[in-house]
Structure formats: structure tokens, C-alpha cells
């Protein structure tokens, strides 16, 4: 075809009157080299720039590389998010469909692509000359923006809460602040939270299973921050750390526009990897093009690790602490002399004691502190129970007294040391290299743990008495070079919160995995599930003494009947001093088949640096008739 045109042109060019037309004809031919697609100048620009391959586009549509190179799949699990039929797997088709949809006539109001996909429109406008676009009326979007205005974004980390599987690793959400005055104004800010949309009819373990395996969809919700403060600080008794980010006005704008696009859009929710924290990182990647936060989390996204990723990317401007209701009460109590603690309880139970001689004789500042503590203690106890008129009356009496003494109330307690914030802790993952001497054998161990922290490990940034181990694998290599499993802990959780007259938490443990036990003359790998409940007592400083009643179910080929239950007890001491943390742990168990086991372990952890430690363990086991004594030294590296 082109050859014919050229030869015709040359022939025509020999005719003087038509000679002047030739350049025009050639130009016209060049402008329209192929029908259809390139008749659309916008599409042509997009093709020329290969916009569909750009990181901004891929991030906006949540595409991740597919199994084969050059293939993509979006993690948005919702057809409503895509304008092209196969858009979930085809960034190019999705871009084409978006460009087309943006330009359809404006009579669908809020359903118009320009109103639904504001971030896409903004980006495409900056990259292409879209020409004169129709002007749909985006009433819903305008209403959204009238409420959700932000100049600053803050990364929020509600801290570890062991009494709920979804909360024991912490959580992250974003807060959008309109102004930059704090001290209460942030109550009205909007919080952006990604969570699973649960079916209220499911319960307990079914929730747990579905959450772990992607059985629930996840979506974003935007709600006022005071509700989050209440949920975390009060209802769940969790401290909140807030990390203001340095996103500029354009970046924050981009984030909010994209958030609008994600309204009611379902994603798969996987507790470990595509979870709350992972999606927040994605929002930040959209806000600041070029940022790569998510590639560091291919398998798991432990919330505190995502906080550190944001920190390492240079996004943070600082950190502030918002204490839980329990922490505030603890601060108030610590500000009172110990001999007045009994009076706090008395006052909370008998508000008329305010008028007693003893209370009135106290110096004004102390009296004010006492009433404040009693009021806070009474209200702390009431988080949960329904309104009781008698308690309300006592609360009000204390409140009135507080008002009367308010002038003498001292200023609130200082903020905790930022160096002890959760982000300052050791890394979640751990490599362990060690050597062991056990009775007559020596062996090496190599260990890898996915997360998170054991009782005796470097203490900074973790709650005392909290142990959360997930995916802990230790491999032993005998002196003949044969590898074997030393232990594999799927889950190993221990929560040791001390009881006193004010706080009465239950201490508990849950553990399952594979370990080695001596039975019937040889050491075997056994599969076990065990749990315990009990109490912890605080001793001097941070030291804790604990005792638990335990139950165990074990699969052991050395038993005649391989599946055996056992009951037992466990007790221990946890002490920390400077760089050294010590955990002494004793256990005794009796199986249904009569076998008994005794165990005593002494674990010493010497902190070498934030991410390194030396771990010495002495373990004595009496698994009749054989007694075992092992000593191991390991080097631990966190990352």
C-alpha cells in the first residue's frame, strides 16, 4: 500500500499543478499511519509514553508482578475497581479503558469515571494533554472532601495487645489531620484503617482461621480518630504511638484522592502478609511516587516492621505517645506514695471518705492526686460493665471533689523516653547460630525465627513479660554433619502481666510445634500443643515471678498410645538488669500414661547491641529414667 502511494505521488508530482499537493498528501498520510487507535491523540500520547508500564499506574491499580515476567495481577479483588473486562490482569487494557471512560459524556453524576477515579484522573492529566473533558457533577466526592481535608498524615501504631490474636503484633493505621494544632484537635481528624470485613455470625476459632487464610475480604474505612482512641486506649487498654509523616500538601492530596478510589473496594485480607500494615504502605507509595516500601515484605508484614520501613524511608518527623487508660492509671498511682494505694481503693469504693479527717489532713497536692487516682481507678473498673447508678453516684462525687481540688492538681506525668518506643526494639526476624553440649554429644544449631520476641531477649521497645514467637525453626547439625530438627515452634505465646490490687490480669501461655523429647530410650521428635493459665507477681523493678497450671497434648511415637495428654505446672522468674536479662523456668508434667517429666532451664541474654545478643542456656531435663543436661551458647542477630 505505501509503495503504491509513493509511486502515485511521484507520478502526480510530474504534473506541475499537483506538485504542491504532494507534501500535503504525504503529511496527511504520515499523520494517520493506521486506522482506529491512533485516531485518538490521547491514546497515542499514552502509547508513546508507555504510561501503562509506569510505576505510578501500577501502584494506583495495586498491580503486583505475576508468576511470569511481564505479567501483572492486581491485589484489588473487586470488579468495581476495574473499567476493562480483564483489567485485574492487564494494566494496558485498564489504562485504555480508563482513558475512554474519563471522556464519556457527563450524565452519570457520581458514577462517572472522573468522579470515581479521581487519583487516576489527576495523574493522567499531569502526564497527558487530555483536552476538554466533560464535567460531571461529583457530589459525593465533594462531600467527602469537605469532611476529609488534610494537611498532614500521621502513622498510628496501637501497641501490642496479647489478649487478641489480631492485636498481639500491634496494628497500624493512618490519621489525616486538617490543621497542625494537636492537644485534642486530632480527636476530630479522620483515621484510615484497613481491616477485614467480618461476618458477625462467625465466632472464635472460625474467625481466626478465616482471617489467616484469606477467608474475609478487607477494605478501607475512614472514621473519626476519637473512635480509635476510645477503641485502643480505653476498650483494649493499648498505648498508642503516633508518628507524624513529612508528606507535603501534594502527596497528602494524592493519598486522599486514591483513598476515595478505594472506597468500598474489596481486597483479599491475609493476616500475615496482605494485612492492615501492608495496605497502609501501599497508600504511602501512591502518595510519594518512587517510594518502595512493600517489596521488603514479601511473606509477612509485621506492623512494627512496617513502621520501621517508613522510618528508614525518611518519612517520619517525630513520635508522640498516647497512653492507654491503664497506663494513665499506672502513672497516677506511681505519683502517689505506696502507703496511699490502699486509700485509693477505699476512696473508689466509698466516695464519702473524701470528707474523712485522714484525707482532709493531706497536703492539697497529694489530696488532689489521691482523688484523681481514685476517680481514674473507679472509671477504669467500669470499662465494660453496664451503667450502675450507685457507681455513677460515687463517680460523680469523686468528680465534684476533683473539681474542688483541681487547682492543686499537678501537671501530668512526663512522656516516656522515645528511645523505648516500639520502633526502637530489636528486629522481628532472628538468626541464631550456636553450639551445644548435651551429655555426651556436641552439636551446632542454626535457627531462623519469623517473629517476634522472647521473654529474655533484648528488652527495649517490648512490653515486659510478653513472648510472641511465630515460625521459630532451629536445626541441629550433629558432629557427624547430619542435620535434624531441634525444634519448630509454630506459635509460642506467653503473657505474664503482674497482678496487684488495681490490675488483675490472667497470665497465660499457648504453644504448638515440634520438639525433641526422650522417651523409651531414645530422643524423638514429638508434636505438641500446650497451654497454661496462672498468675504473675511483680517483684523489685521489672522483675516478675510467675506460676501457671499447664495442659499438654502430645503425639509421641515412643508412647504405646502415641497421643497422650498431660497436666502440669510451670513456674519461673524473669529479671532484667542493664544488658543482661535472665529467665529461670521450671516445669513438671505428668502424662495420662504415667510418664513424668521435669525440666529446669536458665536462659541468659546479654545484649551486645540493638540487633545482636549472646544467649546462654542451661537446660536440665529428667525424663526418667534418663537425665539430660545441656548447655548452649548462641549468637543472635535480628533484622
Amino acid at each position: 500500500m505505501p509503495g503504491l502511494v509513493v509511486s502515485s505521488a511521484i507520478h502526480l508530482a510530474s504534473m506541475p499543478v499537483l506538485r504542491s499537493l504532494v507534501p500535503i498528501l504525504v503529511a496527511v498520510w504520515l499523520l494517520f499511519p493506521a486506522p482506529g487507535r491512533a485516531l485518538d491523540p490521547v491514546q497515542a500520547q499514552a502509547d508513546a509514553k508507555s504510561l501503562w508500564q509506569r510505576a505510578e499506574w501500577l501502584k494506583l491499580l495495586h498491580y503486583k508482578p505475576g508468576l511470569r515476567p511481564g505479567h501483572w495481577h492486581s491485589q484489588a479483588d473487586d470488579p468495581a475497581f476495574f473499567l476493562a473486562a480483564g483489567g485485574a490482569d492487564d494494566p494496558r487494557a485498564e489504562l485504555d479503558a480508563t482513558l475512554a471512560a474519563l471522556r464519556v459524556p457527563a450524565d452519570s453524576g457520581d458514577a462517572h469515571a472522573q468522579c470515581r477515579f479521581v487519583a487516576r484522573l489527576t495523574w493522567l492529566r499531569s502526564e497527558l494533554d487530555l483536552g476538554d473533558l466533560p464535567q460531571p457533577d461529583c457530589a459525593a466526592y465533594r462531600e467527602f472532601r469537605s469532611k476529609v481535608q488534610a494537611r498532614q498524615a500521621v502513622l498510628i501504631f496501637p501497641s501490642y495487645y496479647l489478649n487478641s490474636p489480631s492485636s498481639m503484633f500491634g496494628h497500624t493505621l493512618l490519621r489525616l489531620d486538617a490543621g497542625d494544632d494537636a492537644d485534642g484537635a486530632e480527636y476530630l481528624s479522620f483515621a484510615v484503617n484497613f481491616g477485614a470485613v467480618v461476618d458477625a455470625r462467625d465466632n472464635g476459632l472460625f474467625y481466626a482461621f478465616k482471617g489467616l487464610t484469606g477467608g474475609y475480604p478487607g477494605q478501607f474505612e475512614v472514621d473519626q480518630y476519637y473512635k480509635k482512641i476510645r477503641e485502643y486506649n480505653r476498650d483494649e487498654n493499648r498505648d498508642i504511638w503516633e508518628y507524624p509523616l513529612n508528606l507535603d500538601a501534594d502527596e497528602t492530596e494524592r493519598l486522599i484522592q486514591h483513598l476515595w478510589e478505594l472506597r468500598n473496594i474489596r481486597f483479599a485480607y491475609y493476616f500475615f502478609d496482605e494485612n492492615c500494615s501492608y495496605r497502609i504502605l501501599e497508600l504511602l507509595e501512591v502518595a510519594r511516587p518512587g517510594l518502595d516500601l512493600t517489596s521488603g515484605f514479601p511473606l509477612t508484614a509485621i506492623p512494627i516492621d512496617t513502621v520501621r520501613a517508613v522510618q528508614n524511608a525518611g518519612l517520619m518527623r517525630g513520635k508522640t505517645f498516647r497512653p492507654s487508660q491503664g497506663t494513665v492509671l499506672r502513672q497516677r498511682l506511681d505519683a502517689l506514695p505506696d502507703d496511699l494505694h490502699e486509700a485509693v481503693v477505699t476512696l473508689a469504693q466509698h466516695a464519702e471518705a473524701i470528707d474523712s479527717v485522714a484525707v482532709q489532713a493531706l497536703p492539697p497536692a497529694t489530696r488532689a492526686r489521691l482523688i484523681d487516682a481514685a476517680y481514674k481507678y473507679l472509671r477504669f473498673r467500669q470499662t465494660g460493665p453496664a451503667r450502675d447508678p450507685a457507681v455513677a453516684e460515687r463517680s460523680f462525687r469523686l468528680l465534684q471533689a476533683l473539681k474542688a481540688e483541681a487547682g492543686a492538681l499537678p501537671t501530668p506525668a512526663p512522656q516516656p523516653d522515645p528511645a523505648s518506643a516500639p520502633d526502637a526494639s530489636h528486629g522481628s526476624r532472628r538468626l541464631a547460630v550456636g553450639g551445644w553440649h548435651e551429655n555426651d554429644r556436641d552439636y551446632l544449631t542454626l535457627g531462623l525465627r519469623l517473629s517476634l520476641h522472647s521473654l529474655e531477649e533484648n528488652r527495649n521497645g517490648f512490653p515486659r513479660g510478653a513472648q510472641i514467637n511465630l515460625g521459630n525453626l532451629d536445626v541441629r547439625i550433629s558432629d557427624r554433619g547430619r542435620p535434624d530438627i531441634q525444634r519448630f515452634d509454630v506459635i509460642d505465646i506467653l503473657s505474664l502481666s503482674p497482678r496487684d490490687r488495681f490490675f488483675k490480669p490472667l497470665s497465660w501461655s499457648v504453644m504448638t510445634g515440634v520438639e525433641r523429647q526422650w522417651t523409651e530410650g531414645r530422643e524423638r521428635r514429638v508434636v505438641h500443643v500446650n497451654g497454661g493459665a496462672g498468675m504473675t507477681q511483680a517483684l523489685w523493678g521489672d522483675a516478675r515471678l510467675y506460676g501457671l497450671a499447664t495442659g499438654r497434648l502430645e503425639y509421641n511415637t515412643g508412647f504405646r498410645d502415641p497421643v497422650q495428654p498431660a497436666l502440669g505446672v510451670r513456674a519461673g522468674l524473669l529479671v532484667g538488669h542493664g544488658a543482661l536479662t535472665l529467665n529461670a523456668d521450671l516445669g513438671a508434667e505428668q502424662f495420662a500414661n504415667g510418664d513424668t517429666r521435669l525440666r529446669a532451664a536458665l536462659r541468659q541474654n546479654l545484649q551486645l547491641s540493638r540487633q545482636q545478643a549472646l544467649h546462654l542456656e542451661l537446660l536440665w531435663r529428667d525424663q526418667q529414667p534418663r537425665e539430660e543436661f545441656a548447655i548452649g551458647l548462641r549468637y543472635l542477630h535480628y533484622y
Partner: protein
Amino acid sequence: MKNLLIGAALLAASSIAFADAPGGPNCGWGNMLFEGQSGIGPHFLATTTNGTSGNATFGMTSGTNGCSVDGKLTYGGKKMVSALFDEFSADVAAGDGQALNAVAVAYGVPKEDRAAFASLAHRNFSVLFPSENVTADDVASKLETLMKSDAQFAKYVS
């Protein structure tokens, strides 16, 4: 099926089908002081989901407790008093605090006037809270009356 159910809940949450005039039966801030939060179930093993309730808001609920939305600023302040009622009462007694400040912000009181606002509320604690059985509605109304009769704050209450 589950998706449909949740979807229906989302639609319902954003509707104002039951909107009432303020003071009407479905509308208002009739919660009493020290109501706290009854019915928090135990969390142990309850969830691995950091779940949203499914009534996922997107900043767009009517937010006025079933009342018709008419955009008056006072609804913002009243809503905050109701939402933070216990915390607000404690802050008014003490003379300052974040909940008290949040209410001031909700009424549109600028930063430089907030200390005076706190002082106004604190001085008048017994007017605002005559007993433990006051409702948020009562307290907000009394607060607004106090603001109206104070030259500095009258402009924030229409």
C-alpha cells in the same frame, strides 16, 4: 451471600432514612454521664482480623445520631460532647484536657481562645453537671447558653 449481606449493611449505614428533627425520638444525644461502654465482649481468640464492623464508614455517615443534617456548627460541638461525654466531664472538672479541647475545636473556637473556653466550662462545672444523671443534650445546651452569654464565645453558637 455474605458479601451481599455486608453490602446491604453499608448502604444502610450511609442512608439517613430515619432522620429526625433534633430532639425527636430517634435523634439526639440522650446518653447519660458514666454510661461507659457496656457489652464489650472478651477479645481472647475473638479475631485475627482487626475487623471493621462491616458498617464501614467513609467519613460520610450522617454522624448526627439519626438527626437530619442541616450543617449548623453547633451540631458538631454537641456531637463531640456526646461522643466524649465521660472524658469531657473529667476534663471540665480538672480544668483542661484533650476531650475538652476537642469540643472547643468542634465548636469552632480558635486556638487562642481555647484556654478561656476551658476556664468558662471549669468555673461553671456545677451548672453544666448538676448531677450524674445529666444527658449530653442537657450539658451541651447549658454549655451553649453559657457561650451565648459570653461576648467572647457568642459568635460560635448560632
